Structure formats: structure tokens, C-alpha cells
């Protein structure tokens, strides 16, 4: 048998660092606690804005009016105007779409690829495992933002290139966490029983191992959504992601940064607050889900 392995270095940044497990209460939602419920509400609002934002926007988010540049909140314009005299609230609502859909794509891509690699290497072990592990070790050498800059150089700046680059960069982290869980699952007696009964490897993986890992996968997805939102907004802030004049929270911060220096901080701060609120919500919810996934495993 393999020697007890120290925890993989990357998985030591625990998603669920902190907060001791609480007493269990009944009710699916109540188990999330007040902070968890508030987080779920923030995520729901952000999702709603991402879907219906352009319809909800009270004014045209792309219509500049230079005579209104940097004008503060007034007459129905709750958050005032940005550097080109566009309505900030409308731009925030319209920008929710690209802010939310990018992380969603990253989470889906990196989780699918990471889970497939993790389950495959846990199932076959030996050479497959060694090959996958060393391939992932090399990917670890590329920080997400650097990979995104490379992708922007090769394919041109844009949300799609950035999302693909981040998915590749996150994949090794996902695969390491899930590989451990898959390995544990693979060593369960019920898997051996199924094998003896002649069930095929694919069927066991898809029908039993992956469903049993689902709580962990969902928790991982939630935490990663927050990371991806920060990194994608950073890339857009750098001018390598979503391109202006398209509304996007990261873009709004970079184009309104001048306003902070000139005494009109509201547009940039408002966009920053949106990012922070959504990221906190995903972090808190993800931690709760991790605690529950771990509690269920013991």
C-alpha cells in the first residue's frame, strides 16, 4: 500500500479554513445559517442581474453624454455618471452579465476537465496516475494571470481567451483536491463488490464514484467561482479581457480610476463593491458547503 502521503501542498489552502462546525439544525436552507442565507441572496440577485440586467437598466448603459461626465447622484440616476457621462447604475446592471458568465465558464471547464483527470487517475492508478500528476505539476508553474496574458498575446484580448486560460490554470488545483477524494472512494468496499459483480469501470465511476463526490465538487465549484471572478475582473482591469466600451465591472474600475484621483470615486468604488459583494457571497457559501461535504464524509 502507498505510504501515508502528506497533504498536497496546494490543497492546504483550505476552502473551509476557520469556523468550527455548528450544531446541525433541520431544514435545508436553515442549515446554511444567517451568513449563508445572506450569501445565497446576494448570489441570487447577481444572477438575476446577469440574466435580466440589460432589461432592468433604467437608462441606456452605452449612451455617453460628456457634459454629464463625473456628475454625482441626481434625479433618478442613483449612482451618478461615469467619465463619459453614462449612467453608472445601468452600466453595473448591464455589466453583471459578463462578470458572471466568465466565472461560470471557467468553473464548468476546469471542473469537468479536473474531475475527469482525477477520477481517471484514481481509477487506473499506476502509469496513468503518474503521467497525469507530472503533467499537472508542469501546469502548476503557470499562475492564472500569466497564462491569461499569454493567451491574450496569442489570441488577442477578450473574455473567451481569458476564460480558457484560467480554466487551464485552475485545472491542476481542482484535479489534486478531487483526486484525493476519488482515491478514497475507489478504496471503498462497495467499489470492489461492484467490480466482482462485473460492472464496468466507466459505469462504476459515472454511477457511483462521481455522484458520491458531488458535494465536494459543488463546494469546490462555489469557491472557485469567487477566484475566477477576481481573476477575470483583474484581466479586464488590465485591458486584456472584456474590451471597452462594453460594460463590465473590471473595465469600469480601470476606466474610472482617474476619477478616484480627481475626487469622483463613486463609479470605480461602486463597481469594486459589486465584485467584493459577490466574491464574499461565493466564499462564505463555499465554506459552508465544504464543511457539510466534509461532515458527511466522516
Amino acid at each position, binding site marked *: 500500500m502507498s505510504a501515508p502521503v*502528506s497533504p498536497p501542498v496546494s490543497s492546504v*489552502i483550505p476552502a473551509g479554513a476557520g469556523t468550527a462546525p455548528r450544531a446541525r439544525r433541520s431544514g435545508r436552507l436553515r442549515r446554511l445559517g444567517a451568513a449563508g442565507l445572506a450569501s445565497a441572496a446576494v448570489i441570487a440577485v447577481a444572477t438575476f442581474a446577469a440574466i435580466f440586467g440589460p432589461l432592468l437598466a433604467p437608462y441606456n448603459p452605452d449612451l455617453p453624454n460628456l457634459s454629464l461626465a463625473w456628475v454625482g447622484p441626481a434625479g433618478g440616476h442613483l449612482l451618478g455618471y461615469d467619465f463619459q457621462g453614462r449612467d453608472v447604475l445601468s452600466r453595473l446592471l448591464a455589466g453583471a452579465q459578463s462578470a458572471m458568465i466568465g466565472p461560470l465558464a471557467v468553473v464548468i471547464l476546469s471542473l469537468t476537465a479536473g474531475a475527469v483527470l482525477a477520477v481517471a487517475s484514481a481509477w487506473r492508478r499506476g502509469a496513468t496516475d503518474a503521467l497525469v500528476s507530472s503533467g499537472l505539476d508542469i501546469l502548476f508553474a503557470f499562475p492564472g494571470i500569466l497564462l491569461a496574458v499569454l493567451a491574450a498575446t496569442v489570441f488577442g484580448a477578450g473574455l473567451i481567451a481569458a476564460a480558457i486560460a484560467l480554466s487551464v490554470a485552475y485545472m491542476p488545483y481542482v484535479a489534486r483536491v478531487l483526486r484525493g477524494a476519488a482515491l478514497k472512494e475507489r478504496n471503498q468496499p462497495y467499489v470492489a463488490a461492484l467490480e466482482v459483480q462485473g460492472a464496468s469501470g466507466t459505469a462504476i465511476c459515472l454511477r457511483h464514484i462521481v455522484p458520491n463526490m458531488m458535494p465536494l465538487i459543488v463546494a469546490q465549484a462555489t469557491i472557485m467561482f469567487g477566484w475566477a471572478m477576481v481573476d477575470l475582473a483583474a484581466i479586464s482591469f488590465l485591458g486584456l479581457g472584456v474590451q471597452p466600451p462594453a460594460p463590465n465591472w473590471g473595465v469600469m474600475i480601470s476606466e474610472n480610476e482617474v476619477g478616484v484621483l480627481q475626487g469622483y470615486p463613486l463609479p470605480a468604488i461602486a463597481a469594486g463593491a459589486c465584485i467584493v459583494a459577490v466574491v464574499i457571497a461565493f466564499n462564505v457559501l463555499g465554506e459552508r458547503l465544504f464543511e457539510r461535504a466534509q461532515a458527511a464524509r466522516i
Partner: protein
Amino acid sequence: MRWRFLIRRLAMLAGTLLVASFVIFGSLYVAPGSPLAALSGGRALPPGSLQVLEQRYHLNAPFLAQYWYWLDNALHGNLGISITLRENVSTLIASRIWTTAALVLYASVIIALAGIGLGILAGLRPGAVDTSALAGTALTAAIPSFVAAIVLILLFAVRLRWFPALGNGSGLLSDVRHLTLPAIALALSSLAIVARVTRTAIREEADREHVQTAVSRGIPARQLVRRHILRNAAIPITTVTGITVASLIAVAAVVETAFSLNGLGSYLVQAAQTKDLAVVQGISLVLVTAFVVVNLVVDVLYALLDPRVAAGARAR
């Protein structure tokens, strides 16, 4: 056997760097656009000078040969010429690397002192201190570096005028002043993560039986914390600090851009926008090398703190 662990990790490092350099060169090699057009800056050149360029940059050589020329030159400190600035990439990197290194180092010191300090405090003092530390770090962990940057500029540069808002300094003292806000912006979210992990590690260790035994033996609190709790908790704390410090190397690009600092990262971003391939390749290579080396140092520290790691690596 410690040595065998180190040698194995060094070999892995060399292999990773080789593959990474191949990826960096290869991905930009397939980038659309002819390198000749980039070299000539879009101007039409006479066929004679085109030939000179082709020969000088080995543009007609097969891909692998070109990669070899590039790697060979890079190992000798020659990273090619920037198309936009018409200068040696190595010289350009050398003039900017200290800003980035100082920024990352400054932020690392902040993370190590404030993050670990806060974590120890929260871990040892359950109750109000702990609760507020948890809530505070939950907030700061979610603040991206560029959002922290604009808030810090607003508060400490525009309103209070304690620190300059943008740009590099001149001279040591002015450099430190110019780098303070960027370093805080860079450190903030990592600091929160380090504090939370430290707190959990301290809390777990303090609940262990050997600590209870030490308490019942009447060992003074100061010694208890230092010898019995901190020494064991040091393993996860070192790991998380090392990983977050390594991740700063890439995030520095965002902070440098936000504060208009003249560092490697902001230059990389500009080069990516202008498709200055030699610069992108050169800086990527430097950043990946730094990242991998820091990770190696973390792994070695980890093995020194926890002998089971080196032993486990040998058994595998």
C-alpha cells in the same frame, strides 16, 4: 536522505522549467502575424534587409531549431530585442525587475507579520477578538488587489495625503513611500487567507492531547505557545504563506498597473497589448522561473519542518 529529496526536487524544477520555456516559446510562435512584419514595424523593407532579418533571427529554420536558438540565447542572458522600444529585452527587464522584487518582498513581509500575527492572536483568544478577526478576514479575503488599490488611493493618497498615489520613487526612502500602498493592496487578500489558516492551525494544535498534558504539568503559557503549539502549527502556516507569496509574483502585474509602477508585470501587460513577443516571452520566462523557485523553497522548508515529507517522497 534529505539530500536525495533535494536533488529530486531540483531535477523536477529543471524539467518543469524546460517544459515551461517550450510552452512559452511555442505558444507565441503559433501566434498569428508574421514575425517579419512585426520586426519591420509594418514598413515595407527591401528584399535585401528582409533576408538579413531572416538570417539574424533564424526565421527560416525549423521550429525546434528556433526554439533551441532562443533557449540557448536566453540561458546566456540574451532575450532578444523589444520591437516597440528597440532595446535589449534583458536590459529592459533588468531595469524593472527591482521594482517588482521590492514590491513582492514588501508585501510578503506584511503578510508574514500581520497575517501570521493576526492568526495567532485570533487562535489563542477565542471570543470577541476571534470573532472580529474572522469577520474582518472574510471581508478582506474577498477584496481583489485592484479594488484595494483604488480604495487605498482614495483614502491615503487623495483624502489623507499620507502617501503618493501613483508612480515610482527616486531614492530608497521615497521608493519605500511609493511602494507602501501598492504593497498593502497586493498583500491584503493573501494576508486574510494566511490569518485564517494560521488561526485554524493554532486552534487545532491547542486542542491536542499533548498540549492538554503540558497545561496540566503547569508549563507557563508563553513556553506552551512557543514550544508546543507554534512548532507544530508551523507546518501548515509555512505552506500557506509560501504559496500565497508565490502567487503574488503574478498578481503584482495588476497592482503595478493600478499604481502606474514601472515594474515587470505592468511592462508585460503593455507588451501583450502591443504584441511585443520578445518582451512577453522574456518576462514570462522570468516570472515562471521566480514562481517555480519560490515553490521549491516552500517545499524544501516544508520538508525541513516535517521530516515525514522527505521520507514519504522516498517511499513513493
